[in-house]
């Protein structure tokens, strides 16, 4: 069975390449453009990994992360922050919320893919 990845970002033009990459690497992909939609999808669809933007309209990425981690069910779900906020204070804050990684935008495709594979134990 394919592993499931949820992409949360409000910029459609960033979702496009990410979706393509995940599909290319044989993952099942869903997307959400707000934190609320993301939480809804997570509880219903139960993805294995979430690529999470921080600057979202309404609820921001940090809050989404916090909410996920509060649920026992999702304590093992992998979370990678994917954000244009590149200051060390932003990264520290993200990692402090028990995310698995923090990748700054713009990113190298290979790096994102290899990180995901590493976290999901799909290393070949």
């Amino acid at each position, binding site marked *: 069975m394919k592993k499931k990845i949820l992409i949360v970002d409000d910029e459609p033009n960033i979702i496009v390449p990410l979706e393509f990459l995940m599909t290319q690497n044989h993952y099942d992909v869903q997307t959400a453009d707000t934190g609320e939609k993301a939480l809804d999808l997570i509880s219903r669809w139960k993805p294995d990994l979430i690529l999470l933007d921080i600057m979202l309209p309404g609820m921001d990425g940090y809050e989404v992360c916090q909410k996920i981690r509060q649920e026992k069910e999702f304590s093992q779900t992998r979370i990678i922050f994917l954000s*244009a*906020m590149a200051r060390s204070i932003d990264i520290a804050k993200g990692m402090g919320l028990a995310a698995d990684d923090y990748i700054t935008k*713009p990113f190298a*495709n290979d790096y994102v893919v290899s990180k995901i594979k590493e976290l999901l134990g799909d290393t070949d």
Partner: protein
Amino acid sequence: MLEQKIIIFVSFGYMGLLFAIAFWGDKRAEAGKSIISNPYIYALSLAVYCTAWTFYGSVGAASTSGATGFLNIYLGPTLMMILGWPILRKIICISKINRITSIADFIASRYGKSATIAGAVTIIAVLGIVPYMSVQIKAISTSFQLISQYPNVYMVQTATTLSGTKDTAFFVAILLALFAVVFGTRHLEATERHEGLVAAIAFESIVKLVAILSVGVFITYGLYSGFGDLFAQAGRVPHIRQLFVMEVNAATFTGWYNALFLAMMAIFLLPRQFQVIVVENVDENHLKKAVWLFPMYLLAINIFVIPIAFGGMMYFFEQCSSDPVCKQTLPQAFDGILEFANGRVDADYFALTLLMAKQQQGLALFAFLGGMSAATGMVIVETIALSTMVCNDLVMPVLFRLPFLKLEQQSDLSRLLLIIRRISILVIVLLGYLYFHYVVEYYSLVSIGMISFAAVAQFSPAVIGGIFWKGATRRGALFGLLAGFFTWMYTLVLPSLAQAGFLSRDLLTYGPLGVELLNPSHLFGLDVHRLGLNQYTHAVFWSMAVNIGLFIGVSLFSRQNAMERRQATLFVDVFTSSVKSEKSSFWRATASVVDLRTLLERFLGKTRTADALALYAREHHINWEKEFIADAGLVSHVEKLLAGAIGSASALVMVRSVVEEEPLGMDEIMHILDETQQMIIYSRELEKATKDLEAANVRLKELDRLKNEFISTVTHELRTPLTSIRSLAEIVHTTPGLDTQKQHVFVGIIIKESERLTRLINNVLDFQKIESGQIQWQMTRLDFKEVIEDALFSTGQLIKEKLIDLTFDISTLPGIVSGDKDRLIQVMVNLISNAVKFCHAENGRITVGMQVKTKKTGGNGNEKGGVTVFVKDNGIGIDKGDQEIIFREFRQVISGSKGRPLGTGIGLTISKHIIDAHKGRIWVDSELDKGATFFFELPLLE
């Protein structure tokens, strides 16, 4: 026959003697045994006031108008000494404390050590004194020519003798200048005083007094048997008898008081008088004796003026009656010149010519010497005083501003200072010569001297007002001085130049360009004849009126800066002030001792610096070996030492260049300011200023934080399009066999995101431009509908893609505004693209509207018409609390707060700046989840 060789030998011998006295005086001063430190020498040195004008000119004036003609010139100083001594004492006291070097320094120092004032006073003084200088040159050269042709007393007025006079005058001028150079600028004084010079001047005063007394005694008791006999005989000559009574009419009355006033001012405002009375004063207590000694001297030197005049008149009128030419030309009222068949006799020189006619060779030579003494004394002291002013207040400030001279790096400037002073002396004397050469021959000695008196009287409001009225400001003084000076030039100098033929004489008859109102001889139609004003009274009336008027008027309406206020207190409260002089310009200044020493050495030389510092160390128990940092006391002391050499304004600049002033703590300020009542007022101002500063500091910190926020926001916004560009480009680049349709979509996104990136960068640049005010607004008259159309044209694609339902609510009235079309389009595009971005995702709706409110529809007649434009979306809206913030600099509503993040915050900030520049206002009306409407309003043009 008196050989010229002998005359020249005696003259030079006399000069040599003076020089020896000066040399001896300096030596004694260096040895600490001052010879001038007594009130008698001081009083004698004040008598430098009596120049050739007194020696020769008074006799001439007495011959034409009796005692009325000359006494006021001496009554003025007498009154000033006796009644005005509190003023003099105050000036002396102030000058001692502040080490004042000249009248220019004094006035500049009072008005905040202003270099501009110092320069203005210097220029006025130099130009004002030039006519006076020429009087001395004329007197020496004429008397030299007379004594050379002994015993012939008639001056032949031919072209050759005239040019002969001019040649003599030229040599006289050069010699006088050289003497002045030798006397005054042998070395630069660490102090501003010249003891040897004062000794020589005092000696000169004795010589001229003895000379005129000898002449007077000879005439009164040699030619006649005493005053009674002389006056009895004089009474029989009709021309003389009419001088016995003062003819009182409007003209003589105003003229007499005018001259009295000018003389009162001249006694302490003439640069040389200021030099001897104030600068060279050794001990303030000497003034007490000089107050009656000096008037005694004036009385003595004037006692024989009338006998000499009458004696001369009796003798030469008798000659005249036997001379056919003279008999015919002698006017009813004697005007001072007798035209004989073989030349003319000028009443100015009766003291000399009468003795020559009576074959008194030795006495005539002595009289010549006395006259020369009077003239050289004036020229020497005057040029030394003026050259100090020119050097310190005119030339050095300019030289220091010329970067290519690199004066800052010169290690020793004392030689340069001396050279400048010497050149200034030469130039000033030469100016005097030129004035003599071209103008003076048309005037008598006294009338030219009055021109100079009127010039220096212009200093009186600034000086007297300055020491008694704290409210007098720098601007007031400057405006008064300049206006007075220009009026003086216009009403006195210009006519004298016109008289000499440099300008058309029509000027005096019809006014400049025929404008009668501006006629320099009766300005603004002042009826000079009915008021009995002569040329001088008229000039003094107008120049003093504008001077005093502007001095007081401008002072009342201008503010003093801190330095002015401090100097004003220091001057006005000199006797009572608790502001210590040692705390002069720097309150809490420190400087390195080495820097200060180097600075002093540059102007005073090594030895004088070492002496001065050693003295200071002894007095204050300081060991220079251990002292590296100079305290405020030493800094002020150095400033004073320098002020003695280069004047206070320049000294302040020099010291400031090496001093670091510590920021004042609040406690410190309070402590200093508690000292006087006056200063408590300043402390309030200071407290307020400190609060303002604190507020400004907070604001700056806030700005700094916002700037950081702005940078991180902008970079965040730049990263977003960059992310999709990079990622998609990598995919296109590395995916083999990517199907063409996908490839097309991906590259399309790359292009679009690149455009977004470009827009973003342009926005940032625009923001920067608007923020720093560099933008050039292209204001034109336009209908705002065009702006809306153009904005929709460029955003149309965007709206279409998002399938947004666009509606309009646009008034049919034309919305005419004055604006920069491109910038207004930018605002509309910003608002529309924001709306597009944050519209409801599925069924977005945007309304663009425009309402026109004319004056009539505005109801109230006073209300201005306006054009209101709005862009309404149905997005998630903006929280009430954030609605203000979004327009502010560097702000955006970022995640964390409820509502939408606003792209780059700068889009709205730019829009606000643009609307503000159009005198409009911009605002938003929104509620969370209910969409947002952005409004802006611009003033309607019609």
